């Protein structure tokens, strides 16, 4: 989006998060689940950054860390230029007016015993917005998401899934945030409703210049809405760049395989497309592979190991380049343009 970069709105620097990492008094430790492992990204004003990856890649954890709903084990979260990693709860609350979240499940995320006006006004009460302004702000938020304020006395069960997701968005937008973290906001919706919500998110961004951190596993949806895209694998960002860079010139073999697995709704193209199958399934985050974390599934590593001048070693029954099996690749390049964490990024299969 923005190439002459203004100051980033949100910066996540070297974020790590390990769950259940306990140390007993004798010094014996049980190794926890490393959900996020040294992830770094920036989000700019009025920008949408898509965060994609398989289940277990740590994308939701990273999204929640951005809002400090989960505390990182190490690393630094900066919002509006200020380090908020260790901000007190009281100061954090003030920040949260401008950083909000929309959840996946429009059924589970709204209290069934609260009417829509209560649900949408609740953030205003929490943030001590004077009572005289609340009604007006609540109505404006409902109108913004295309809901008739005259329906505000109704309860969530009286609305369809798409309308509930609009209520969730109204609740997040009522405080005029500058950052919205959306965790799979459309994946529970039917396709016809999904398009309505995606168009609504476009309109809201055009009007309010809010930034979206858009977490999703559907690569077609992410392409549609994002300016830049980050691809996560086992807690690490393995590729990040502009939408065009990621979708037309992917460098990381994981991104290439992911894209080749997305079916295209056209029988002629779809049946002639080359698919690059990944080997097996995403590994476990409590046992991250040595070297490049993707090497156990990487089709490219196996291909490269066939070349005569490459130093290789046996991993199980296959040959893998020594580099892939032993050294963790760094994310190289500009995250504004295109960066990739792979020892052999330019080779194509």
């Amino acid at each position, binding site marked *: 989006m923005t190439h002459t970069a203004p100051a980033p709105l949100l910066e996540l620097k070297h974020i790590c998060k390990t769950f259940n990492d306990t140390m007993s008094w004798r010094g014996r430790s049980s190794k926890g689940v490393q959900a996020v492992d040294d992830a770094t990204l920036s989000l700019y004003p009025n920008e949408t950054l898509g965060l994609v990856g*398989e289940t277990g890649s740590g994308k939701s954890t990273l999204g929640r860390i951005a809002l400090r709903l989960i505390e990182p084990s190490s690393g630094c979260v900066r919002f509006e230029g200020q380090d908020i990693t260790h901000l007190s709860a009281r100061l954090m609350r003030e920040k949260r007016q401008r950083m909000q979240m929309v959840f996946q499940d429009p059924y589970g995320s709204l209290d069934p015993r609260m009417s829509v006006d209560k649900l949408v006004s609740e953030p205003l009460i929490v943030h001590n917005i004077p009572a005289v302004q609340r009604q007006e702000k609540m109505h404006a938020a409902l109108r913004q998401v295309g809901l008739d304020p005259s329906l505000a006395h109704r309860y969530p069960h009286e609305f369809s899934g798409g309308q509930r997701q609009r209520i969730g968005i109204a609740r997040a937008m009522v405080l005029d945030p500058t950052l919205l973290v959306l965790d799979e906001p459309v994946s529970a919706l039917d396709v016809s409703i999904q398009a309505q919500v995606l168009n609504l998110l476009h309109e809201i961004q055009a009007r309010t210049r809010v930034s979206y951190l858009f977490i999703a596993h559907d690569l077609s949806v992410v392409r549609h809405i994002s300016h830049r895209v980050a691809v996560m694998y086992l807690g690490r960002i393995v590729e990040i760049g502009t939408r065009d860079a990621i979708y037309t010139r992917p460098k990381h073999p994981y991104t290439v395989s992911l894209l080749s697995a997305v079916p*295209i709704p056209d029988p002629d193209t*779809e049946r002639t497309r080359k698919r690059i199958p990944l080997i097996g399934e995403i590994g476990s985050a409590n046992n991250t592979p040595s070297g490049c974390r993707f090497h156990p599934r990487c089709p490219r590593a196996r291909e490269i190991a066939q070349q005569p001048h490459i130093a290789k070693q046996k991993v199980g029954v296959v040959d893998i380049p020594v580099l892939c099996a032993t050294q963790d690749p760094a994310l190289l390049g500009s995250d504004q343009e295109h960066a990739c964490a792979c020892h052999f990024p330019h080779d194509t299969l």
Partner: protein
Amino acid sequence: MSESSKVLLDIRHLSVAVRDAQSNTPLVRDVSLHVRSGETLAIVGESGSGKTLTFLAALGIAPNNIKVTGGEVLFENDDLTKLNPSELRTRRGTAISMVFQDPLSALNPVFSIGTQIVEVLRAHLPMTRAQARTRAIELLERVHIPDPHRRVDDYPHQFSGGMRQRALIAMAIALEPKVLIADEPTTALDVTVQAQVLELLSQLREETGMALVLITHDLGLVARHADRVAVFYAGRVVEQAAVKDLFHKPRHPYTVSLFRTIPRLDSPVHTALTPIVGQPPNLAQLPEGCPFAPRCYLVKADCSSTQVKLIDTTDSEHLSACHHWPEVHPGS
């Protein structure tokens, strides 16, 4: 798919309704579908359009308050709707089998995967426990579970999502059914695993010649895997055609609207999505004429008054339930 292949499952004019004390709401109306051996029939439509219920009712496994109110379900000269429960039970599994959407709730958490497959085998076949276990290991190997000798004793929670879905497929094909109905088999799975599971289903279909019914909302999967497609809307089939005809020459405005509503990986980047206006209709209060009329971009005066019927628009089995099908143009 050759026209000469045998029609295995033939659903004719099936209607299904939910009954309670006060009301009798039709959920599926006059649905006719058939599937031939070796063929993949895709069923697409939104939630609540009746696509799953049609098959649950056809197999007699719909909830108790849901009744078949008309039509017949023919399988090898038997009308499944007329069979008594025990006769129907012997057909399920051996003749027609079903794979469900959510593999975690379809498996029993307190029994090992192997035990659950053995149970299916021994319920239908005269097998000893040891024979059934050997067969269970073969089945797990067939669906590409790594190290099946060891994994057969694992419990569902020890399997990943993709492996659970494979285990369910292993159970569904255990009795070598002639028709396999897969209800959103990959909705809960990641895209890479989804591709693997669907390749597996296609491979099994090719090897065994079984018919595959793929219930899905993902038009990309339909494009890749289906031979024919039926589109459901408000409890009816509104269009039915060979996959290429449906994608290239859709003849119902709802199908066209569905295509326009999905973001595609191969479309130009700034293509705006065109959502379908409004909500799907309430099945208890369906409008008089075409149920899609209130949301249709092509709506004309007669649409809201005249009953629609599924008619053959060509001689090549391209059916449409739109009065104005010659005016339906594919989205550009």
